[in-house]
């Protein structure tokens, strides 16, 4: 067993796969039932999946028309969490997106993104004042007025990277004609990443191909949307 040859080890591992426990024990079930009341037993879920999905489609369809993709967009999941307001009341202590990031030169940012960056000087923001590499991936473009554009390339939209906690659904509006899909989130909210919990303000999130973009500013919603459209035009032109 110490040094199995490749073939034998592969055989043992295949057998492990066949024998692995993949369903919780009865004790686990009890614990989980207490923790997550309302969750259906696995067998019921398996049998009733199709029916449940039909129900989901019917019930959720109006929501989908109101906001993009069940209050989520790309790898960003937007949760409605009224308790977020109490966390935000202490937002003076919450860092913002730019806190703790180190500015880098343009070539370094281009290297991280894997493509050339537009000049971004065709918008009312003018040329950016710097770039930063985000610990969660992608590049942050920073302007002197505090506006930021977080650009992540080749994002896997089936993963959940960011979680936004907003107080009410009305804060989210679906936008037409911006990238493949876009939403505006108005008001202060929490942004949770695998690395940090941040305070965030007005934000436009949009998808273009495999790219996920997020512009944040203290400007009001309509003005921020116009800025997002101008930035998107430069992103599109840069190809």
């Amino acid at each position, binding site marked *: 067993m110490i040094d199995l040859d490749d073939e034998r080890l592969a055989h043992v591992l295949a057998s492990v796969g066949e024998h692995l426990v993949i*369903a*919780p024990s009865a004790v686990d079930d009890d614990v989980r039932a207490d923790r997550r009341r309302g969750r259906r037993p696995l067998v019921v879920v398996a049998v009733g999946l199709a029916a449940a999905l039909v129900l989901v489609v019917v019930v959720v369809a109006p929501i989908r028309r109101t906001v993009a993709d069940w209050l989520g967009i790309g790898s960003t999941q937007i949760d409605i969490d009224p308790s977020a307001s109490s966390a935000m009341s202490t937002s003076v202590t919450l860092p913002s997106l730019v806190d703790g990031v180190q500015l880098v030169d343009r070539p370094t940012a281009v290297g991280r993104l894997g493509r050339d960056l537009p000049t971004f000087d065709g918008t009312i923001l003018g040329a950016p004042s710097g770039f930063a590499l985000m610990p969660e991936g992608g590049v942050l473009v920073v302007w002197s007025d505090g506006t930021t554009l977080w650009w992540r390339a080749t994002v*896997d939209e089936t993963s959940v990277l960011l979680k936004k906690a907003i107080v009410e659904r009305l804060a989210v509006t679906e936008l037409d004609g911006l990238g493949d899909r876009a939403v505006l989130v108005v008001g202060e909210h929490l942004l949770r990443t695998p690395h940090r919990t941040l305070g965030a303000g007005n934000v436009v999130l949009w998808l273009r191909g495999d790219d996920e973009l997020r512009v944040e500013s203290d400007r009001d919603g309509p003005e921020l949307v116009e800025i997002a459209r101008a930035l998107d035009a430069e992103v599109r032109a840069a190809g």
Partner: protein
Amino acid sequence: MLLIDDLERILVRRARDGDAAAFGELTARHRTSALRVATVVLGTATGADDAVQDADVRAWRFRASVDPDRSFRSWYLRVVANVAKSARRSSGRRAVLELREAATASSDVRDPADEAVTDEERRRAIAAINRLGADDRLVIALRHFEQMTEAEMADVMRCAPGTVKSRLSRAMDRLRAQMREQHSEVAS
């Protein structure tokens, strides 16, 4: 007579068009693999079915991105792995992993040579796997538990097949190192 792949392609097309029953059929076909991948990523069977349910919802949301001409299983297992990773990060767990061996096989489909593998061999392999990181466990599981090709694994892991090869090689090296370490611990 339709080949299974042809049928799956038809189901994918119907699911993309919003046919929830077709989508349910597709995910049901790969339920065991999904639970196994979620279990391996989480490090425990507890929560694996929740992760798979969440993955089902997310997969349904993003069904338009499924390519009918590529493996649905690879795409679906990618969603499951991503959701399980997210759940693991959110829970902040877990210092101790608990992959366990079932008393009986989890599938009726058995390799005839399986009987030749002893309980002790499996137990030691699981103990070594438990000491690996989630990424190593996932790549080993895709290759050896799910019997995926490097191309299929590349689809799941969203990387080049060459990268899969090097990641798998490194994971297997670490697995062997853990097995040797265990042996040393037992011997001493």
